[in-house]
């Protein structure tokens, strides 16, 4: 008999005298009604968690914003799904040495203030850079995490990262520090509203 069979056997033995309990059904996210729209909710939580949020009405405006923003950086790592218009106008560097990383989020979640990062975009550019710029189309904002996961469930990559703020820690004497391992600066650039 294998370890697997012995463990499953012990589980069944342990459950023999216990009544089966039904699943209570879907999680409805019970909370007082929030007056915020999903986009406003996302912005509120991202900023509360220490992230920066920029809103650009269309792709052209986002491109010009990026040109200005990149003035402070001499190179950048770039995610696989970043379109030509959003590629930073600086030399490309590998994520382990780049001071900046640019990615595109697959979506975002309003109730948790999370950007949804797909492994197909390249994980290193999302994680190793000190400053992480993430582009997001406003129409890709889900109200709840449950909706987002249900919507993505038939197209899951090897890993999804939910990024809801910069890297932080309070492990040294309960004092908050940013940028411990992941990006210490997270800039979400929302695009849309006026095409």
């Amino acid at each position, binding site marked *: 008999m294998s370890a697997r069979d012995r463990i499953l056997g012990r589980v069944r033995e342990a459950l023999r005298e216990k009544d*089966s309990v*039904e699943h209570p059904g879907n999680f409805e996210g019970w909370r007082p009604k929030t007056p915020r729209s999903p986009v406003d909710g996302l912005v509120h939580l991202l900023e509360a968690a220490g992230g920066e949020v920029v809103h650009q009405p269309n792709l052209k405006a986002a491109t010009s914003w990026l040109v200005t923003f990149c003035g402070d950086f001499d190179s950048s790592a770039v995610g696989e799904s970043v379109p030509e218009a959003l590629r930073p106008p600086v030399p490309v560097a590998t994520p382990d040495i780049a001071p900046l990383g640019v990615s595109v989020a697959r979506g975002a979640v309003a109730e948790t203030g999370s950007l949804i990062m797909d492994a197909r975009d390249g*994980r290193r550019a999302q994680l190793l850079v000190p400053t992480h710029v993430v582009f997001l189309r406003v129409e890709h904002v889900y109200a709840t995490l449950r909706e987002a996961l249900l919507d993505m469930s038939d197209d899951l990559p*090897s*890993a999804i990262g939910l990024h809801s703020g910069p890297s932080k*820690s309070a492990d040294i*004497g309960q004092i908050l*520090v940013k940028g411990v391992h992941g990006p210490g600066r997270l800039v979400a650039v929302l695009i849309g509203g006026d095409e």
Partner: protein
Amino acid sequence: MSFSGPTNYRREAAKAIRDKPEVRDSVTAATRTFDAHRVHAWGQIDADRWRDWARDVKTHVLTHLDEYLEQAERQLTSNGARVHWAESADDALTILGEIVREHGVKRVVKAKSMLSEELGVNRHLEGLGVHVRETDLGEYIIQLLDEPPSHIVGPAIHRSVDDCRKLFHERLGTPLDADPDELAAAARDALRAEFLAADLGISGANFLAADSGTIALIENEGNIRLSTSLPRVHVAFVGIEKIVPRLEDVSAFLQLTSRAATGQPIGNFVSLIQGPRRSDEVDGPEEVHVVLVDNGRTSLLADEAAWEALRCVRCGACLNICPVYRQTGGHPYGWTYSGPIGAIIAPGMLGLKEALPLPHASSLCGACVDVCPVRIPIPELLVHWREKAVEQGLTPRVETVGLKAYAKLARRPGLFSAAGAVLRRVPLGLGGRALPVLGGWMQERSAPKSSEKSFLQMWKEGIE
């Protein structure tokens, strides 16, 4: 350094309070902050309904655990992950050792995992000649200090900023007056090199969704994402009770656990891992191994009452609110899981005799049950284990004899009042500690001053 086991709890707790009063200050400050954040975060949701739902999902999973384990195994396998089953810590370590050998692993980075602490992963790897580095900042601090974690969520909360300054000065060369930002930057640099050089990353799991085979991990630093993304092999140790039926259910548990642990809507980084790197991906591990670990969990599941403790999501809320835990932090408990939750799972997982002092490490004030996100009836289960200890004759003989003598005495009013008169004249403050039963109580407390008159006398004379 690893834990020595719970049997010396009383002695170790007394020693901690006497010799390290600063630990109480650090732990109390940290846990009060955690708890205040939880209170605030629960105020923003209908926490009672969230908790009822979470309790019911977890209870449902436990009563169908065999089916969900099989489903998770099937799904993980079809995602390309390799699933292993470990009955004991030794089994889990043997499985890890085989993976290490197969891949010629020399360097390991670890994401914070209480299960890996429970299994003794670091010591085992060091024994195999493998360099292993904890990458969570708190875990890194205690690894350098050669100490075990003292809290489920904040492993180094017993250490002050000054302790960290001294440690990092010695080990990383930072100035003695460095601020926390400088200290964290030095740790980041040291650990970044470890991430880039590691062959293998080890993590635990907060949840495992059976329907999608997803391992869910919550954190704030990004070290878990790095540990599970950079090395070419990822090994996840998963306790068999970590299963949740559906990925959509995980969406709720991620939020409830974050709110209970640190008061955040969700940790700043969440990893949802299905398996190894796919052909259309540019990075990520080539192999993902999931080790499903029993190590006492099926024994706990078999208990008629304490099985409910397997709902635990390891948020640490019961530690944060516990007036007993706050005095000492986790070390005196002598085991990976301290505080109220540790005290009710230890007897089921380690054996009651091995864990016995822990169910007594509580005043039964009940604060823990009020904060548990999955509504584990912790005080009831503490009493459950105390009763079992008496049934099994595990309490000290003198206590049993003493209580029987008291019962006889209490049935004979004349003798009772005579014995009371004698006891009122015993100088408890001087020799009380030598007495049976009462003496144990007085080891860590001041003796009460005896009243001049018995209650009965006062009653007869008329109590104001």
